[in-house]
């Protein structure tokens, strides 16, 4: 009896490890395929020889992608929007979260309800679009971060973190005559670095990945962020006529549209890969904070 369960146990453990290795492979596999394509010669990509390793290794595709004027401006736009948007969001979100974390704030419940209600109900796409147009924000870079400055979910996470900071620490600052604003910036925020790091990474990733806002509000090619540029690149390669065009143009460069797509996707993913280790350190905590708020 004892023998049987332990064999069963070993089989289970072995298949469990195998299963997760398989899952890891499935996750990585599309990236390997893409990297291989981006590093292979035009002929190899077009004839469909490339699997997981590059065929006729070359780096010309990356040179081609990076030298593209529109790619450059898209990349710079995305960096600007992500940096400015994240900073503004952090300030706006902390400024709202701090008063709302104070039970003594009269009308607190109503203010919180005002925030939470926007998570449950919204005016919808078209009324928002008409407002943005009325404000003259169509075809401007700020439209890519202004409407997304405060995520109510992130605000609630910061608020619950503030609520757990011992009152005594703030009181001593208060006794020294510090205003609420000074207390926030000199006492509370320095004590909240873990949650601020988590939330700024959440914001940064959201701004970097957003293509939908740009798709609605941006037409001019030089204002497009990277994700929208990529989306259009993918769509154009699906369109057979455009595809023929790009092949003509790219013949001389010895790069194929598929390889260009692949290389562009890789370049757009690199910033995420760079912040991912930091992100990983904090996001479990962020998810926990989000789930325990009550």
């Amino acid at each position, binding site marked *: 009896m004892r023998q049987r369960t332990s064999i069963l146990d070993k089989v289970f453990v072995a298949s469990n490890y195998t299963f997760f290795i398989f899952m890891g492979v499935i996750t990585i596999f599309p990236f390997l395929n893409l990297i291989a394509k981006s590093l292979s010669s035009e002929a190899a990509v077009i004839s469909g020889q490339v699997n997981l390793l590059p065929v006729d290794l070359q780096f010309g595709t990356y040179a081609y992608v990076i030298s593209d004027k529109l790619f450059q401006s898209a990349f710079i736009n995305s960096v600007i929007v992500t940096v400015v948007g994240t900073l503004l969001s952090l300030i706006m979100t902390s400024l709202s979260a701090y008063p709302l974390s104070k039970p003594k704030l009269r009308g607190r419940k109503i203010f919180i309800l005002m925030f939470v209600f926007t998570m449950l109900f919204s005016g919808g796409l078209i009324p928002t679009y008409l407002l943005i147009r009325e404000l003259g924000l169509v075809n401007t870079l700020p439209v890519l971060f202004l409407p997304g400055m405060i995520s109510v979910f992130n605000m609630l996470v910061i608020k619950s973190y503030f609520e757990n900071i011992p009152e005594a620490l703030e009181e001593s600052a208060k006794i020294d005559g510090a205003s609420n604003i000074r207390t926030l910036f000199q006492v509370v925020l320095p004590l909240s670095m873990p949650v601020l790091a988590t939330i700024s990474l959440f914001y940064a990733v959201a701004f970097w990945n957003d293509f939908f806002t740009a798709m*609605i509000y941006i037409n001019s090619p030089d204002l497009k962020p990277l994700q929208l540029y990529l989306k259009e690149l993918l769509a154009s390669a699906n369109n057979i006529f455009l595809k023929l065009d790009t092949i003509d143009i790219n013949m001389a460069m010895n790069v194929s549209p598929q390889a260009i797509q692949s290389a562009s996707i890789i370049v757009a993913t690199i910033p995420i890969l760079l912040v991912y280790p930091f992100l990983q350190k904090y996001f479990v905590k962020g998810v926990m904070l989000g789930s325990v708020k009550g």
Partner: protein
Amino acid sequence: MTPSYFKRLRLDVVREWDLYLMLIPGILFLLLFKYTPMYGIVIAFKDFNIYDGLAASPWVGMEHFEKLFLSEDFARVFKNTLIISIYKIFFLFPLPILLAVLMNEIKNMVFKRGIQTIVYLPHFLSWVIVSGLFLQLLSTNGGLINKMIVGLGGESIAFFMNTEVFRSVLISSAGWKEVGWGMIIYLASIATIDPQLYEAAKIDGASRFRQIWHITLPGLVPIIILMFILRLGNILEAGTEQILVMYNSIVYEVADVIGTYVYRIGLGQQDYSFSTAVGLFDSVIGFILIITGNYLSRKFLKRGIW
């Protein structure tokens, strides 16, 4: 009561004026970018045109909603939304739970952390990137999956242009992106189960499977119910962003959902009033579902969603 309340409020505002001052940017943000569009919903009951503006456009009552309920297009997108959502719930809701339970049985911490690092990653990529990865993988021109199909003696499939398989592409790419990440909440929940329960079970000679069945799974039931309620509350969101990037006119018939329809009719054809009506219908149903879910959650789990 009332006068004294306002008196106290005034006293508070004077004493803690900077606390209220800090709140002003956030409240202005909400009023401008969230509540003004809610007022803009009135165009669903008007015949809005850009030249007359919002106030001067004539009222038409429920005309757009009558059109909506009679519209074949709307019936189609509503059906697609439900089908895609239900497929996603059916296939993708249970998977993270199963994975978390299995992951919990992995005792090698280095392996565990390594796999987690890998499978969480796709969650942080945009739908544009994920779509690009799948386009390459499923391409008829040298895509790995089609090469495997052909290698096994099959015929290559134009996954993105085939109404029979396109929904499967949507669901599997959503799975690839989110299933690993979906584990995290259940893993966090398992971590809160009292270790003494497992110790006691081991002393009683309970096998690994019995421990999973009698301790881990029951410990997960409340969070599973909570997540399920939340998921149902979002049933009309079938993945608008994903579909907007991945679909094309050939597969509209099976992939056009409420979100993509509002986008195309509203911004493409500039039928502002009608698309606002569609959007309002969507928002109201979503609101009712989430409020009901919260009520049920409070009643049965003694724990609200917010």
